Structure formats: structure tokens, C-alpha cells
């Protein structure tokens, strides 16, 4: 490993940390504009986090240590995920430590802790949210794995940075298998990040919540960590999407500092685009009935399987 690879690694984590709330702020801004509202500042998520960090957490008397630990575990899992996703460059020293399947496992770990913590205090809404989250999760994970497998078959490896590099360096062509999996991945992204049409991050109706219901009991720095982790998760998913479907622009192979310097604005441009697209999807859709979520995710799975079949049949 060259020193610049370690620099790439550090930069990837630092940029993820800095950009996650910003990305969320951008999505919220786009949503507001699309709905003809005046938007809050781009920095609003940071202000929210700062506010929460200044507050004392209030913890239920019945809470176990798990409840206190969960925010740190969830946040750490998202940070670890950010370290192995090739958002800026594909030569990540830590990329060898965890492949795409481990990445899916990291998300699952975070989910399990989140759901356990939600049930820990014993309020009805926590349990309600945890139940729904597990339902969404057990359907979304296979779909996500299937998406990863298609990319793995194309590049004959499960290491995400290598997949990304392979996809970036091969001649530009329209690949039907990647088109199918791209749609499947977008659907999984929406479901996994509690976005419309599966969940509504802006709702105050406790009976309809999924993600928000699970963090209802959190406050202060714990809530700040949970919210930060949620925005990091969204950014991670976006970066996985870029690595698989828009790999161009990030530093590949043995490229030097110049490529890395160019990777940053490339990432910014991709995020700006993805945020606008996400906001558009959320604005034109209504929320699905909870029992429509399985259909939605089954469709995602089916599309990913189609992608794989197309790859096997056409060998693209």
C-alpha cells in the first residue's frame, strides 16, 4: 500500500462524516423546492445535531445498557461501512478487510441493534417500529445481496473497490443487467433509508412511523448519534450506488493525487444529482400502505434476479 492509499482511506471517512448531514440537507432542500416551499438552510442538519449534542439525554428508568450502547454501535457500523465504500478512490487499504457481503452484514448489525434498543424500553411505539423495520429489513437484504451478486458476477470478485474499479475501467456500454439492478438498488435504497414510499422521515404520526418510531425514546447526544448514523447510512447507500452504477470520476488504479483531487468534485456532482433525484421520487410518490412494502421489495428482488439472468444469458 502506498501512503496515498492511506490518505485516500482517511479522506473517504472524513468526507463521509462531513458530507452526510450536508447531503441530507440538500435532499431536504430539493424536496422543499419541489413542493413550492421555501427551503431551510443547507446546514440545517448540522444545526440540529449541534442542538442535540448540547442537550442532556433523558433515559427511561427501565432502559438497559443496551439502550445506551446502541447509538454508538449503530454509528460505528455506519462509519465502518463508510471506510470500505470506494466513494473517492478504489484503492482502499481497508477495502480488503471487508467485501460487499460483509458490508451488507454491517448494515444488518446496525439494524439489529436499533431494533433491540427500540424494544428495550418497552414502549408500544418502539416495538411497533422494530417489528416493521425487521419486516422491511428481511425483504431488503436479499434484494441488496442480489444486486451485489450481479456486480460480482460481472467483475468476478465481491470486494466492492475492485468491482468499482473493474466497472469504471471497462469500455463504456449500456448494460441491461446493470440497468435492471440499478432500479432494484434504488428501491432498496428508498426502503432501507426510511424514505417515501416505504416510510416518511418527516411525519409526526406515531402510528405510521417505522424508523422514527424506533428512535422516539432517544434524546440528546444519543439521538444526535442516531440521526447522524441515519444520514451516514443514506450517504453510504448513495456511494454504493455510485460505485456500482456511476463509477466514473473516482480515483482508480495507481493514479496519483491529481485524480484524487478530481474525485472530490466528481463525488459532489454525483451527490447533488442523486439528492435531486431522490427528492423528486419522494415528491411525486405517496406513502405505500405498510403491507404494500413486501410487494415493493419483492419487485426489487425480482428486478435484481432479472439483472442476473440477463447477465448469465447475454454475458454482458
Amino acid at each position: 500500500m502506498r501512503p496515498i492509499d492511506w490518505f485516500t482511506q482517511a479522506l473517504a471517512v472524513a468526507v463521509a462524516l462531513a458530507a452526510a448531514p450536508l447531503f441530507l440537507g440538500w435532499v431536504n432542500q430539493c424536496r422543499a423546492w419541489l413542493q413550492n416551499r421555501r427551503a431551510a438552510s443547507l446546514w440545517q442538519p448540522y444545526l440540529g445535531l449541534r442542538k442535540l449534542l448540547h442537550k442532556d439525554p433523558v433515559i427511561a428508568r427501565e432502559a438497559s445498557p443496551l439502550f445506551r450502547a446502541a447509538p454508538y454501535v449503530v454509528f460505528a457500523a455506519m462509519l465502518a461501512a463508510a471506510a470500505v465504500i470506494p466513494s473517492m478512490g478504489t484503492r482502499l487499504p481497508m477495502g480488503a478487510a471487508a467485501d460487499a457481503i460483509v458490508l451488507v452484514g454491517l448494515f444488518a448489525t446496525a439494524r439489529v441493534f436499533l431494533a433491540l434498543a427500540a424494544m428495550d424500553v418497552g414502549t408500544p411505539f418502539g416495538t411497533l417500529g422494530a417489528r416493521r423495520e425487521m419486516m422491511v429489513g428481511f425483504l431488503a437484504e436479499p434484494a441488496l445481496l442480489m444486486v451485489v451478486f450481479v456486480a460480482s458476477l460481472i467483475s468476478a470478485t465481491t470486494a466492492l473497490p475492485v468491482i468499482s474499479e473493474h466497472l469504471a475501467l471497462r469500455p463504456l456500454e449500456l448494460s441491461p443487467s446493470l440497468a435492471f439492478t440499478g432500479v432494484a438498488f434504488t428501491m432498496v435504497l428508498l426502503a432501507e433509508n426510511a424514505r417515501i414510499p416505504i416510510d416518511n422521515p418527516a411525519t409526526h404520526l406515531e402510528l405510521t412511523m417505522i424508523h422514527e418510531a424506533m428512535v422516539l425514546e432517544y434524546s440528546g447526544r444519543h439521538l444526535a448519534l442516531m440521526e447522524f448514523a441515519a444520514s451516514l447510512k443514506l450517504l453510504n447507500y448513495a456511494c454504493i450506488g455510485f460505485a456500482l452504477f456511476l463509477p466514473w470520476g473516482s480515483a482508480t488504479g495507481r493514479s496519483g493525487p491529481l485524480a484524487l483531487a478530481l474525485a472530490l468534485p466528481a463525488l459532489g456532482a454525483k451527490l447533488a444529482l442523486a439528492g435531486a433525484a431522490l427528492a423528486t421520487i419522494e415528491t411525486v410518490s405517496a406513502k405505500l400502505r405498510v403491507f404494500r412494502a413486501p410487494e415493493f421489495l419483492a419487485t426489487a428482488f425480482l428486478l435484481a434476479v432479472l439483472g442476473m439472468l440477463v447477465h448469465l444469458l447475454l454475458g454482458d
Partner: protein
Amino acid sequence: MGHRAWFDRGRPIGGAPGARLVRAGRGEWRAIAEDFAAAGARLLALWGQGGEAGEPTVFAAYDAAHGLLIAALGCGAGDDSSSEYPGLQDLFPFAARMQRAVRDLVGLRASAMDPRPWLRHGDGGDYPFVRVAGDGVHEIPVGPVHAGIIEPGHFRFSVVGEKVLRLEQRLGYAHKDIERRFREFDALEGHRLAARVSGDSAVAYAWAYCQALEGASKHEIPPRAAWLRALALELERIENHLGDLGALGNDAGFAFGLTQFSRLKEQVLRASETALGQRYLLDAVAPGGMRVDLSRSGAAVLADTVTAVAAESIELRSIYDEHAGLRDRFAGAGTVTPELAARLGLTGLAGRASGQAQDLRIDRPWAPYDRLGPAKCGATGGDVAARVEQRFEELAESCRLVGRILEGLPAGESIAPPPACEDGFGVGLVEGWRGPVLVALSIGEAGRIRFCHPHDPSWQNWPVLEHAIIGNIVPDFPLINKSFNLSYSGHDL
């Protein structure tokens, strides 16, 4: 004895057109209820008057095709058995809660009534909810403190998985003993409190109160005043329907609807401020007429705004109608069949969406509605989609009515203050945006209020919500609840 015979026996009272009061004997109280139930008439309200204003009396207001009959039953201060009046809950199911409220507020008991308190929570002890037993059944308690800033109410769901088996409401958290507060007012001042019983129906309440007051003192208001009141009432209907349509979209995750309808509502509110001096018309209606008059330029602003709102809401309606996601959420959610609605006495807007085609503005028009000729809008689906459709229809009709009022507004005085009145009884009945709002007013010596009971249509509709949710899934409840949009404050008194 048919129900018409009771009208013949009653004496006319002032206020709502065709209103009559009959003093019932102990045996007749049930007979009246049975006759009206047999005739398919509806019970509008049931309330009690405590001993501080004379003999303790319980009142029931029935709404039949040709008028409003109020039955009064004196309950004396006799021994225990005679202070129990015959309950009506078997004939009119929603009477059960009003009888519990009468017991809480006045102390009069109905026979065979539910022993649990309703409006008063101060008695301590656990409130015994009805438990649902079974494999995998569990309870979800929601409220009275909610995640959003809304009025307080407690909802106890018994569910299997996400499916609701039973909902039981507990209300009364907004109880403030408003009837007692009324007794501290002069009758000529009470309209200001009436407008605040349920803020979203301020004009309906204030008008119903003033109608009762003017009826009690046999005072005629100038024609212009009546027309201006109708203008205010229709503006209130427009504002509420716009707000609800936006909120319904938002509750289905379609925030675009909320911003658009909020914008339209804001336009109406601003036009209202320009033309009538208040965004929400809390103090526009006053005894004898309207405290505000409409200038020519104000009328022009209102006309322009309402025309624009009507046009834009047609456009938004097509978006709502053609949005697959919204249709899927609205259709089939919270269905109240016309049969169930008739049996439970579902009223007002929600009733009209379930085939109960009753609208006081059309059935028994009072001035100026007899001249305006509002069209009846009705659906039969009974689900959230039908209540959305109903709102769109009524919104369009109200916009048309506002146009007609502005065209035909008679000239003249907008207010003719009534003389001070001593010792009178009147009843006001107005079709507010949610349904019929009734105010019964008894004026005592020196023009003080002896007794005043404001009745909100939410009394009838809250129990129906418990039925509407059965078999639906938990996360659909907020949407179904919003499609009724019932008042807590107006109900909790």
C-alpha cells in the same frame, strides 16, 4: 302517537326555523324517542341543566324533516330512583356518551347507563377499558400526548399484528366546563365565548348562539347581516376543507398536497383579513348581525380570491384523483357503510359521504340559504376517498355560494343590536363545516345567561370512528381519523 303529534303538542320557540319545545312527562320521554326513532328522525343532542338554574332538567333535541323538536324532562330533586331518567342509548347509540357527560356535569343519571365517567377525569382510579382476549392480541395505547402538536385524546387499540380488532376512545382531556363559564356572561356577550368552543367552527357556533339569542328576544336581523353571516360561514367551510384536503394528502405521505392546499387556504385567510378584518372570523358574528361590514373593494378581493381558489382546487383535484399512490391509500380505508352510518347517526360531512344526505342549509333553510339554493353534495362510498370527494364537492359548492352571496348582497345595515332580553329561551341550529352545530340558550334575569349548551356534531361522529377503523391496519388510523377531523374541544366542553 306519531312523531308529528309531538310537534303539535310543543310550543314554538325562537331561533332555528320550526323549532318547538315539549315538556315531557316521565313516561313520555321514552315514547318521544321511540316515535322519532321509528320515523327515522335523528337525535341531534342531549344535554342536562343543573339545579342552579331551576329544576334539574334533561333535554333531547330531535331533528325531523319538518322541524326541530326539543323534549325536556324535569328530573325533580326527589328521591334516588326518580332522579334517574330513562336512557336512550338503545334507540340512539351515541346518546350513551352524552348521558355519561350529563351525569358528569349535572349529576343526572340515565337508566342502565355505562357507569364509567366520560368528561371528568378527576375521580381517580384506572379507567376500565374493554379488553379483547385472544391469541396474539395486544394493546397499543396512543395519546393523550402525541408526537405532533394536536389536541389531546386517548386511543386504545386492540390489535393482532397490524390489524385493528377494536378501538376504544377516551376523551375529555380538553374539558374546561364551558357551560359554567357561559353562566358568568351577559347574554349579549356570550357569542364571544361561543365562537371559541371549537375554534375551527367559530362562525357556526357564533351564528348558532346569536340565532338562539335573537330567537329568545324575538329580534329580527337586517337581511344584509344574514347574508354576511352566510358569507362568513361559507368562508369558514372553504378554509377548513382546504386545510383538511392538504392534511389528508400529507398524512398519506404526499406533502405536495399539503403545501398547495396550505397556500390556497392562506390566500383565503388573507382575503378574509383584507375584506372582513380577521383571518379567522372569531369575532365577526355578533348579536343582531355582523360586527364588520363588507366594502365594495373587500367584496372584489374576496370574489377574486375565491374564484382563483375554485379554479386551482379543480386542478389539484385531478392530481389527487389521478395519483395512483393516493388513490390506493384513500380507497377502501375506514369504510362506514350507509346502513351503519344510519344506525349510528353519523352526521354532517362524514354522514353525507356515507349516504346520509342531510344538510340543514338545504333541508330546512334559514335566511339567507332559502334564497341561495345550495346544491346537495353526497357520496355513498363511506371510505376516506368518499370523504375526500365530499370535501372537494362542498368546496366547489361553497365557492359558488360565496360568488352568489357577493353578487346578491342586499344593501342596508349590517347590524341592528337586539334589545336586552330577560327570561327567554332560544335554540340556534347551523350547518357548520363539520355538521350541525346546536346552541341552546336560556336567558335569566338582568340579561344574564341562565344556561347555555353548545353541541358539536363530533358527539355523533366520534363513536362512528371506532367502527370505521375495525379491520383496517394500525398505520392507516391517522389518515382515517383525519378524514373525519373531529373536534376535541367542542366535544369535551
